């Protein structure tokens, strides 16, 4: 994760087109979204089933969000905002599978989306206010800087949050692996008997936890039992280097960094897009 996206292979045309992990995930996200969208949008009935109620709820929420942020006259932007939001969320969550990389932890993705937003803004300004007004805006050169800063800040915000979360999770995983290696080394240096005793203590604590229904006792019991088991196995020379402490704990962090942060960043990115495009598409005169 601390590396950039892996290049799986390079298509040897046009000077070599590299297919990166991000591109693969991106294609997968597109396929999943399109298939799910077509499946959910099929067979709509006046009297909806369970799935249709959920679909309508979700689509309705997106429409409400867009209409409340951009105004009723910009309701037609919902498909784009929705596609952006869903691509962002699914692109982040797809990193949780473990073997695929989050599309949003690649600057190529977020910068592309941010530049799309900028182009949409410019297009809307030209369409609504005319090219003269668009160009007149740049008499003040600060606006050029702000127009450049806007997509860059959007792109780096989204990319940084997801990438940072991934890096943190990886660092924690590595740290916990080394800690567990040290602890196991400490136990095994005292010989087989101590390892077995540690294992027994862990099992006892686990059993106590189950009997008394205490969550903490269960967790620590399982941890100590696994440490003892790992040291025993290492003393016996069967397997080595099991990162016992790295089991499960990074997952808790992942819930924050991938689920929560992914959702928040998708929302922030969509909201910023809505605000910028909404400003470029003011309500029609006389409303």
């Amino acid at each position, binding site marked *: 994760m601390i*590396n950039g996206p892996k*290049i799986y292979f390079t298509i040897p045309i046009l000077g070599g087109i590299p297919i990166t992990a991000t591109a693969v995930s991106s*294609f997968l996200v597109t396929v999943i*979204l399109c298939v799910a969208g077509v499946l959910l*949008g099929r067979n709509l009935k006046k009297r909806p089933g369970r799935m249709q109620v959920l679909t309508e709820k979700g*689509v309705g929420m997106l429409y409400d969000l867009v209409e409340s942020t951009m105004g009723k006259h910009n309701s037609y932007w919902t498909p784009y905002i929705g*596609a952006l939001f869903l691509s962002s969320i699914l692109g982040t969550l797809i990193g949780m599978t473990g073997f695929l990389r989050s599309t949003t932890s690649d600057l*190529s*993705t977020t910068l592309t989306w941010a530049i799309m937003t900028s182009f949409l803004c410019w297009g809307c300004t030209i369409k609504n206010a005319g090219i003269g007004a668009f160009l007149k805006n740049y008499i003040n050169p600060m606006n050029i800087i702000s127009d450049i800063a806007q997509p860059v800040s959007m792109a780096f915000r989204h990319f940084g949050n997801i*990438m940072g979360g991934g890096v943190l999770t990886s660092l924690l995983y590595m740290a916990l692996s080394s800690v567990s290696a040290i602890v196991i080394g400490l136990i095994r240096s005292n010989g087989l008997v101590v390892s077995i005793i540690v294992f027994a203590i862990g099992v006892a604590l686990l059993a106590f936890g189950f009997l008394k229904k205490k969550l903490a006792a269960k967790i620590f019991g399982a941890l100590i039992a696994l440490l003892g088991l790992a040291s025993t196995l290492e003393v016996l020379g069967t397997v080595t280097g099991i990162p016992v402490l790295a089991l499960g704990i990074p997952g808790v962090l992942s819930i924050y960094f991938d689920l929560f942060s992914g959702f928040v960043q998708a929302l922030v990115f969509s909201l910023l897009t809505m605000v910028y495009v909404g400003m470029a598409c003011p309500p029609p005169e006389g409303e």
Partner: protein
Amino acid sequence: MDGFEAIIGVNPWTALFTLLNMIITFLILGKFLFKPVKKMIDDRQKEIDDAYAEADKAKSDAQELKAEYQRHLDSAKSERDDIIKEAVVTAGKRSDEIVAEARRDADAIRDKAERDIAQEKKKAMNEVKSSIAGISLEIAEKVCEKEIDEGKHRALIEDFVNKMGEAS
């Protein structure tokens, strides 16, 4: 297995793929998910609104009908009252007429009867007068055993009888 991209860097091909994927996602989701679902929601909303409007209309219609029936009922009641009043008046007038007619008839009958009675009485009186006069003459003849000047005495007796009749 050609290695890795830079961690903070933009690969133009990946960016192009992302752009294409985004456009594809946007088009397909818009065409197959957002627009149909939105249309369905709006249609249903419209249907519900229509149903409510229809129900409201039906309710107001019913109330109007009720008011109209009430009005009809009221007018029918007042009409009935009028008819009864008129009938009572007519009946009273008719009964008065009948009574008056009956009284007139009765008066006529009584007058006629009185006239008849008076006539009969007169006739009877005349008969009685003449018979009393005759009888008196005969009695007087018998009493006197002599011829009485019939012409002279008849006038005398008739005068007496008349006076008696007037006195009675």
